[in-house]
């Protein structure tokens, strides 16, 4: 069975000369819940953009369920749903239209779009807002709508780029439960987050990315072992070279 996402020696160099990805290779198996962690500017979003057609790789290969994301992008993109880091809703559309158009862009027939939109609006508690314009929604509602939009065309690989940044505790837990459920139903998930407990709780495997390179990958315990520490947080602090911020270190130093 092909991997949900297979990246081989991916390089992304921007016209400015900045090398955001320096030969990244990564394989996410179908059905996995995979975490991608790294500091700001490490290359997480660039990697995601290359996989979804929003950025053009300089060199390397990207395959989504075996489909080349550059040369056979149509099949590859059909399989991917993206919930981007920045909320990017269309101001001119209502909540229901946002889902309907997205379904249309992915070739879903009208009846199927209507049914799927109703289901997602219900799941994300947006049914009462269905005819409201997106710009009138609260921050939490916008975040839910972005996630619903990513799920609209029933992607087999869901990419969540910092989905819980700035959302309240209830919504974060709601999102966790929902994505865990769809992962159990077979959807592969690639999650980037700065909340390490989120990655620890949700992800089967995690990769650390820094300066455009994958520097380590494995389960949360494996990563901790690789860095010779006892938690994912300490492993991450080892990655970014800030061990002095470790809770254990601070507790030991306290008078």
């Amino acid at each position: 069975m092909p991997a949900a996402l297979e990246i081989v020696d991916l390089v992304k160099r921007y016209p400015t000369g900045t090398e955001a990805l320096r030969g990244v290779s990564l394989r996410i198996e179908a059905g996995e819940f995979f975490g991608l962690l790294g500091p700001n500017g490490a290359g997480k979003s660039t990697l995601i953009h290359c996989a979804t057609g929003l950025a053009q790789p300089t060199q390397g290969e990207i395959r989504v369920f075996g489909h080349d994301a550059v040369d056979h992008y149509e099949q590859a993109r059909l399989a991917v749903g993206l919930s981007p880091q920045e909320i990017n809703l269309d101001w001119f559309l209502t909540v229901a239209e946002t889902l309907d158009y997205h379904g249309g862009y992915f070739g879903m027939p009208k009846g199927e779009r209507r049914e799927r939109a109703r289901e997602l609006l219900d799941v994300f508690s947006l049914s009462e807002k269905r005819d409201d314009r997106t710009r009138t929604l609260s921050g939490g509602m916008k975040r839910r709508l972005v996630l619903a939009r990513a799920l609209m065309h029933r992607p087999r690989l869901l990419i969540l780029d910092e989905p819980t940044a700035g959302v309240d505790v209830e919504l974060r837990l709601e999102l966790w439960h929902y994505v865990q459920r769809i992962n159990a139903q077979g959807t592969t998930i690639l999650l980037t987050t700065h909340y390490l407990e989120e990655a620890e709780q949700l992800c089967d495997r995690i990769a650390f990315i820094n300066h455009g390179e994958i520097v380590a990958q494995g389960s949360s315990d494996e990563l901790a072992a690789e860095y010779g520490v006892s938690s994912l947080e300490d492993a991450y602090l080892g990655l970014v070279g800030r061990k002095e911020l470790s809770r254990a270190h601070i507790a030991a130093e306290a008078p």
Partner: protein
Amino acid sequence: MTAAQIRFLSLVRREVNRFMTIKRQTVGAPLLETFLYISVFGAALGSRIKELHGFDYVVFVIPGLIMMAWAINAFANNSSSILQQKFQRAIDDQLSSPASPLELLLAFSMGGFLRGLLVAALTFTASSFLVDIPVEHVLVLLPALLLVGFFFAQLGVLIGVRAEQFDDVSFAQTFVLQPLIFLGGVFYSASLLPEPFQTLTHFNPIYYMINLVRYGFLGYSEANIAMSLGLLTAATLALFALNHQLFRRGYKLRA
């Protein structure tokens, strides 16, 4: 309907929905503007000028106004729509869909093309109630208007894709497009101009477009019809080919 047809229709529907949502500004305002021109140049000035090349002055002016309405609306719609979506990054929803560069280009073009068609058709219909407008050469008029609409729709896409701020769009419209249209002979016959302005007018591409449309309606032209139609077709195809190339490269759309 196939998935590709659903996709294309959804992309076009989004563009039409945008200008219909704000139709007071996108359809109402241009209509009012055109009728202000008709009132000023037709009723006020026209009573002094009487006839131009055997036509009532207002009848001489209306074909140019219809062409101008289509051109400016096609341009303004596409340049604003694309820039706005780039600003909000809402355009990523279309860019990460399975739509090809050609489908995206045609769909973005159709928004302005259809808005221009709507304003031009309403202008023609309403003007027909006020004055008798002949249609002498429908087989020249229709291709000429369709080509003019498509040319300016492409120009709008080009400027929208290149633009980085709203000033870029308004600069192109106010300082380039509008002077060229006004000086192309919408409100006068170039043959009445003193030299060197008469000769200079022949270097203005819009002069030939106005002549084609005026010939289609009134049967009067100062320029060679076959040559004008040939040049307009060539210019439209060249612009379309350039845009297609830019969309394929993802120029200023994909990182």
